[in-house]
């Protein structure tokens, strides 16, 4: 009795979206839709738009150990000295939100030995060899980069299933995010108070009408409960900074060396400890001494590494579309980019899968220019 009305299934043909762009975009409902001014900048909010597989960047790597990063909301200065480091990270966040100006001061003392910058240079060379693109870090410090790169390679190693995080340029994805809106909490609700998931009751919290006591504390954290919350009164940029330094310190204390120098098994064990909240001091002195929960940092690291592996190459990672090759994602190929001749409907209804070559956003835009839809 299926579909007893006899209503028909629509025909399988549908326009390629590139054709649609030629014929009708912008004219919807018979009216030309006008653009408005968004509350936040509309459209792409990324910090970089370069993604050209054949482009070679000549910019030099940021090797300097003191950096001043000025963004719309944050000024932060990181000073890193010596082979044995004392990192003083002071940052003043002047939020545009009323009543939320805060000053963060944190001192993280680590016994870590600052690694030779040749390691990051080696990563660069590897990356260059793989994707033909040299690149520079904008925000991540060299000593941080060593840890991030090593951790990223532990999370997604190069193996028989293809390239890993380093070849994919995951660190550049993370770097550009930390430089931009993500690093500055541009899309995070940032006012306090900051109270972690799973805080037991009774819990007393001040309010404009006086202190209020909650007998049951806060909701217990479940997977992704904690990162969704982000109960830290600091920018993501500093969350990463403190997290990396603390990971490095923990690697030294628990495994006797810098993270990037540990054996593969110890690197896995060390990251696993973070997931299991084993380090007892971590991100110390952050948000009034509460520190960062190691599992929160581990989750963020894992998440951003995989995003760097899988997001469009225009964001700096997924170089050579290696992430999409692993997962068989077509990217922007809706069935006919390389002349495969498959309609989107055929793709959607097929019982025999075909794996299409991936297409990046840049390639797609390029094709629009060639076909005259976009002006070059």
């Amino acid at each position, binding site marked *: 009795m*299926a*579909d007893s009305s006899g*209503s*028909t299934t*629509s025909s*399988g043909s*549908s*326009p*390629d979206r590139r054709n649609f*762009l030629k014929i009708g975009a912008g004219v*919807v*409902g*018979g009216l030309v*839709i*006008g*653009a*408005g*001014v*968004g*509350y936040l900048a*509309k459209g792409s*909010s*990324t910090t970089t738009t370069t993604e050209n597989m054949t482009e070679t960047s000549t910019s030099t790597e940021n090797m300097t150990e003191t950096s001043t990063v000025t963004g719309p909301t944050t000024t932060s200065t990181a000073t890193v000295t010596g082979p044995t480091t004392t990192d003083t990270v002071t940052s003043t966040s002047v939020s545009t939100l009323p009543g939320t100006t805060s000053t963060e001061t944190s001192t993280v003392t680590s016994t870590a030995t600052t690694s030779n910058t040749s390691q990051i240079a080696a990563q660069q060379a590897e990356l260059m060899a793989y994707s033909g693109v040299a690149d520079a870090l904008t925000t991540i410090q060299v000593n941080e980069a060593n840890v991030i790169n090593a951790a990223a390679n*532990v*999370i997604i190693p190069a*193996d028989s*299933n293809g390239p890993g995080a380093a070849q994919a340029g995951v660190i550049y994805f993370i770097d550009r995010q930390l430089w931009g809106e*993500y690093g500055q909490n541009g*899309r995070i609700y940032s006012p306090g*108070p900051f109270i972690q*998931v799973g*805080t037991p*009751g009774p819990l007393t*919290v001040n*309010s*404009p009408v006086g202190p*209020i006591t909650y007998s*049951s*504390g806060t*909701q217990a954290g479940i*997977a*992704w409960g904690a990162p969704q919350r982000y109960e830290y009164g600091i920018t993501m940029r500093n969350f990463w900074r403190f997290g990396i330094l603390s990971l490095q310190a923990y690697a030294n204390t628990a495994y006797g060396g810098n993270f990037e120098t540990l054996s593969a098994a110890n690197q896995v064990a060390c990251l*696993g400890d973070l*997931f299991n909240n084993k380090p007892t001091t971590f991100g110390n002195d952050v948000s009034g001494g509460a520190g960062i929960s190691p599992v929160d940092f581990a989750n963020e690291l*894992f998440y951003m590494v995989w*995003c760097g592996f*899988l997001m*469009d190459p225009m964001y700096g990672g997924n170089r050579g579309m290696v992430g999409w090759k*692993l997962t*068989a*994602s*077509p990217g922007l190929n*809706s069935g006919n980019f390389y002349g495969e001749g498959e309609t989107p*409907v055929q*793709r*959607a*209804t097929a*019982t025999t*899968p075909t794996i299409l070559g991936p297409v990046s*956003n840049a390639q797609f835009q390029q094709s629009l220019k060639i076909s005259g839809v976009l002006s070059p």
Partner: protein
Amino acid sequence: MSTTITHPSVDVVIIGAGVMGGEIAIKLALNGNKVVALEKGPYWNYATDFAISKYDEWGAQTLHKFDAPVVQQTNTQRNTSTQFAMPLRREAFRTALGFGVGGAAHHYAANYGRFDPWTYAENSNTVSRYGAAYLAAANPNNDVQDFPFTYNDYLPYYKDHEQGWGVTGPNQNPVCPNSTFPLPNHPITALGMAFQAAAESLGINNWPNPTAIASQPYMNQYGVQINACVYDGYCSCSGYPCETGAKAASDARTIPPAISAGLDLRTNAYVYRIDTSPTTGLATQVRYYDAAGNIHLQPATAIVSCIWGFLNPWMMLVSGIGAAYNPTTVTGSMGRGPNEPTGAPTRTAAGTLPIGMNNTVWAGNAAMGSYSTYDFANDNFDHTGVAVPYIGGTRNTYGGTASSPGLIAIAGAGSAANIGSTYKAAQLNRTQVLKQNVSASGAGMQLPQTTHYVDLDPHYVDIYGDPLPRYTQDYAPNSANASNDSVRLWTPVVQKMGVTITTGAAVVPGSTHEVSYGIHIRGGIRIGSDPSLSALNKWQQIWSGATNVFAAGEDTEPVGSNEQTGGTHPAAVTAHAAAEGIMMYLKSPGPLV
């Protein structure tokens, strides 16, 4: 220094230009009323905002660049009233609210559904068939209420809305009696076909799912020309707007003709207050900020709030309209009865279909290709003798919707076990899903309980300094109990499809807690027949005091539903009742009931 600008008075102010705002705007504008719609977001440009820049998983789906920014306003959430409520801080980890003309429909999946006749009187139908004790056992602290109108009362509105929206679907679906959808179905996927054949052979009713995505070029009754779907798959996954306008949103259906008929639409207009007269109690004007921070005063004879996601009750509470719900005394109706089904505990029972499936990434659209049955949903089977009492049932659909590589990143996080080559190997060809996972269990209905409510948070404020809405809710036992029993009902069909099912342990009510919200936010400003139980009467009007204030949206619905996909459209239908109520009010001001 911000300036204060006072505008000339109008008949009606509509707050929010999403699905509901559009539905009401076109009706009032065609009726000749002077209407202003105020929308906090932009008027998206389909060419430059969508066609070129939407193919961006990181920006659109993960950072939610098209969605309401949490830095402007978010909400707090907790499970019980003895907990401190935590704010939802990151858009990346929530399914975000709508933003801009068109609202959340820009990133919805566009599954279409009506509520069936039973759902309109869920409470009394349950009591009359199974008894009050059964209902009390199924839903402790039960707060399900009947709709003030019946299915048949709403039927003309359904038809009108479906014409305007350009809905595809099969006709004569017995759970939606009297349906004539204007457009034919989308192509059915292989999985949909497999389900259809199995259901057919077992004598189970089955239909292609209706969608609010045009399958063919179409012109609606307002003269709006609608393009057909291009099936490129960048559709929903909670972030992708539709550049062709095939997926229904008010800026591609109702708003353009409303503007032609005289609607004054103002974007970047964030309404933060409805002012009321201390003498009459009636609303006098709304206050809003423009993008430059100037304050605007817009007086009106009637005001309708169409801002989804706890925001309708929030607007009333910050404006002092209606009686705030008190969970201790169970009195007051503003903020009462929210029920959000997303993420409810679901028993696992699944296997893989031995056919290749090519539809799971970047192909098709968010809603297409599915077959479904309602035989195990609502009250379409006898619940007498179920092991643990529950109401409603489950509804699964089989078809496959567009998926997304980035979900891998989220799915794997949270576990040390996912570090390294083993997890990576599991992602090989992942987005192509060669063997389709098929489930023989579903999520049960989430039901309103007297312990659940929306109020104003005492600790956190939005960017303008107003308190955030605070949401107190946990999953009611009904959803877990129904999910456990669903395996019994669905297993034969899925086995018939050739799938070997592995069934997980029963889920325990109370073991999974609500952490987020997103897809359907019902209740909080409910309609009903009893002013002590509902915030609004059947014309969606505030019962007394500010009787020139109306509201529309899923949050006006007083029931739980199996139509996980359909809270929106039944609400669009009740929005027509609001439009009629407003017209009646303008002719003859006062309480309409």
